[in-house]
């Protein structure tokens, strides 16, 4: 089994908490986590509902391998309708929260309705209780975490919490667990706060048994760990440099979006990359990076544990930030650094701490600041709006100020909390928003990595690198090298990555394993753990079914093929330096083939035929 086969339903309006049996037919069709929770969401909400209203539901969900000894088997996802994009939101997080939920005996929690006053959910094995959170409201994630620990007094309690940004309506707020892991994208934290739910705390001591074939599971997970250890990326690059191993690589291939994606290479990249985090600083001789830290069960350990230079302007009078905490990952470093033109690693680390402390998606936040900086440059925003702050590209001071304001939801921080799309619309320059379906881009420029353009345009949660990471193939040659500047053949590549990722995200595993693992490594682990036959083919089939289920949800929410596009800048303004010089993204060449492969109509709509093929709910 590996599923616990039961979940909690928490009605925040009535306060009722009930235990329900997991729909095992759905588990067989959608595996778990991302897929299974989406199936529940599709069944239970109107896709056209107000994402921040009581009719939206929020599902915290684990996969069948969450809480097992499979490497990276510690993931959970939050699924709901996104307030940022209007699409399905599905944000994946590591840390220890997901596994703990499993150890308490639960596969997932469905939150519905809205509490009249702030509450938090406490789970101790079988016992789930809604408790008042009035004293926690208005507190940062870090403060609330401390208060909850003082109240509950079990150091092993795992906590997932929203910060002040979510309470103040920032549309890209994250749910932060274990202080610095986050279900980061698409505003799932905003949805949680809209329900007056401040935190979920869980302690599980029941453990996870019931592996279908324990002996084989031990063997195949051991074999798979060896594959990770022997691989240069997962065995050496990620442990040493984290995802930040990519900063200089991506800059060199000319795909590092810079200053709101006006350029594709950043002159200061080497100051903020993975190697820079190892450089001893002048003040105390210590590097930014203290050590690498793992999520539950992860044998890669790409997580960065960092400190900020105590003499840096951002923290010199704030000893509370002189601690170790979650350091820069590549996407955050890019959004806060190259995209805003800032190359001050301590400023970036400070802002990253703030993003964790008050639950903001650093990708969306950084990209929004980048857009605001360009708006400032054009004069659409002036010091009148910023209260005197010169919001200029390259200004570390402006970046830190923007993060503090957005975290608190004060002043211009309220505008920044709208996200890039709404901000640019508000100030009359919608073309400056680097978003798809309202979600900000991650750190790969589609002019230099063609496949990523298609992946962004078609991702079911808006611009996202984690829905089809063709960077692996186009840059790193995994599983085989394709030319990043060539659009031909990328439709099939994108689809294959999208389907495989959907399956991995539904298993309880981390997508970073796929730098080394193919589905042939993953399927046997699922197969040994779960009842039924989980071949590579079935995993891919489940992945494709999940993809189409998400697509169908979006279509019912009013998203059309016209939304499968990129900002004009990426389609018309050619890259001006580097290997991609003179190139734009050739989305128009890739999209028709992609729709055809997906079985959609030429305008990008889900067809009845395809819907029937995957037996999607009507």
């Amino acid at each position: 089994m590996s599923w616990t086969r039961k979940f909690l339903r928490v009605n925040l309006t009535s306060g009722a908490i009930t235990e329900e049996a997991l729909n095992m037919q759905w588990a067989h069709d959608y595996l778990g986590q991302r897929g299974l929770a989406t199936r529940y969401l599709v069944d239970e909400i109107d896709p056209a509902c107000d994402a921040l209203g009581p009719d939206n539901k929020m599902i915290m969900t684990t996969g069948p391998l969450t809480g097992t000894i499979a490497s990276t088997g510690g993931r959970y996802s939050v699924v709901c309708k996104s307030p940022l994009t209007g699409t399905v939101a599905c944000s994946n997080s590591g840390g220890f929260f997901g596994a703990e939920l499993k150890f308490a005996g639960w596969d997932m929690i469905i939150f519905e309705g809205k509490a009249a006053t702030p509450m938090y959910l406490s789970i101790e094995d079988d016992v789930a209780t809604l408790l008042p959170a009035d004293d926690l409201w208005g507190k940062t994630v870090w403060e609330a975490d401390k208060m909850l620990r003082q109240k509950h007094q079990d150091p092993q309690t795992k906590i997932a919490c929203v910060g002040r940004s979510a309470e103040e309506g920032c549309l890209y707020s994250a749910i932060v667990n274990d202080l610095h892991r986050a279900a980061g994208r698409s505003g799932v934290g905003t949805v949680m706060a809209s329900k007056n739910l401040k935190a979920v705390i869980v302690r599980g001591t029941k453990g996870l048994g019931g592996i279908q074939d324990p002996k084989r599971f031990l063997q195949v997970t051991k074999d798979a760990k060896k594959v990770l250890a022997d691989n240069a990326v997962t065995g050496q690059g990620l442990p040493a440099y984290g995802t930040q191993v990519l900063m200089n690589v991506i800059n060199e291939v000319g795909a590092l979006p810079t200053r709101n994606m006006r350029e594709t290479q950043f002159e200061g990249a080497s100051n903020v990359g993975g190697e820079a985090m190892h450089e001893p600083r002048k003040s105390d001789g210590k590097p930014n990076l203290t050590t690498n830290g793992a999520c539950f069960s992860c044998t890669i350990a790409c997580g960065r544990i960092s400190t900020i230079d105590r003499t840096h302007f951002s923290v010199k009078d704030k000893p509370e930030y002189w601690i170790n905490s979650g350091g820069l990952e590549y996407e955050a470093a890019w959004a806060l650094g190259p995209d805003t033109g800032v190359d001050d690693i301590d400023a970036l680390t400070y802002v990253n701490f703030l993003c964790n402390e008050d639950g903001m998606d650093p990708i969306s936040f950084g990209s929004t600041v980048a857009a605001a900086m360009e708006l400032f440059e054009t004069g659409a925003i002036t010091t009148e709006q910023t209260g005197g702050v010169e919001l200029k590209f390259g200004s570390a001071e402006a970046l830190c100020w923007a993060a503090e304001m957005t975290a608190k939801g004060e002043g211009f921080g309220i505008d920044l909390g709208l996200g890039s799309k709404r901000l640019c619309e508000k100030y009359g320059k919608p073309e400056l928003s680097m978003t798809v379906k309202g979600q900000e881009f991650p750190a790969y420029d589609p002019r230099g990595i063609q496949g990523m353009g298609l992946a962004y345009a078609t991702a079911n949660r808006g611009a996202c690198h984690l829905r089809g990471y063709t960077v692996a193939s186009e840059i790193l040659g995994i599983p085989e090298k394709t030319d990043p500047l060539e659009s031909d053949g990328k439709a099939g590549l994108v689809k294959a990555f999208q389907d495989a990722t959907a399956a991995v995200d539904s298993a309880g595993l981390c997508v970073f394993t796929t730098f080394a693992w193919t589905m042939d490594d993953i399927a046997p682990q699922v197969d040994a753990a779960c009842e039924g036959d989980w071949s590579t083919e079935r995993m891919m089939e489940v992945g494709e079914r999940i993809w189409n289920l998400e697509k169908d949800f979006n279509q019912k929410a009013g998203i059309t093929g016209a939304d499968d596009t990129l900002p004009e800048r990426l389609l018309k303004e050619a890259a001006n330096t580097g290997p991609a010089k003179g190139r734009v993204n050739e989305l128009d060449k890739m999209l028709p083939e992609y729709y055809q492969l997906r079985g959609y109509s030429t305008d990008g709509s889900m067809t009845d035929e395809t819907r029937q093929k995957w037996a999607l709910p009507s």
Partner: protein
Amino acid sequence: MQKSLHIDPAKCTGCLQCESACSLVNEGTVNPAKSRIKVFSFHDEGRFVPYTCTQCDEAWCMQACPVDAIVLNPVNGSKDVLSDVCVGCKVCTIACPFGTINYNTSTGKVVKCDLCGGDPECVSACPTQAITYVDANATGLDKMRAWAMKTDNAGA
């Protein structure tokens, strides 16, 4: 040659593979709450410290046991709990100044690390060699024993 667990916290990433492996092998489920090795996480310091029984010479637990339920394993030097002899009185859990023998409320017996009979699962599971099983003389065991002597009343 006597071997012992050697723990190097600087190498630990806090992934808890050791806790999962320990509980799986000894309790039948992945359950860190029942693991005999525990990784303590010092968040603010950015440090992870795996911690379990050092099989100390003084064997406070063994000495305190009123019914001879903890015995010296002559092969690997571990102090093993004989589950069918243990009555569950818990005296060992307060006698051990390291806190590494614990009462299991579901079985009514105490549990501690027994080095898995000479092939510790935590060692096999550790991806970073933060926990190794090496010649006892090469470890910091002497240091630990020196520390244990400080706790010693009898000095025998």
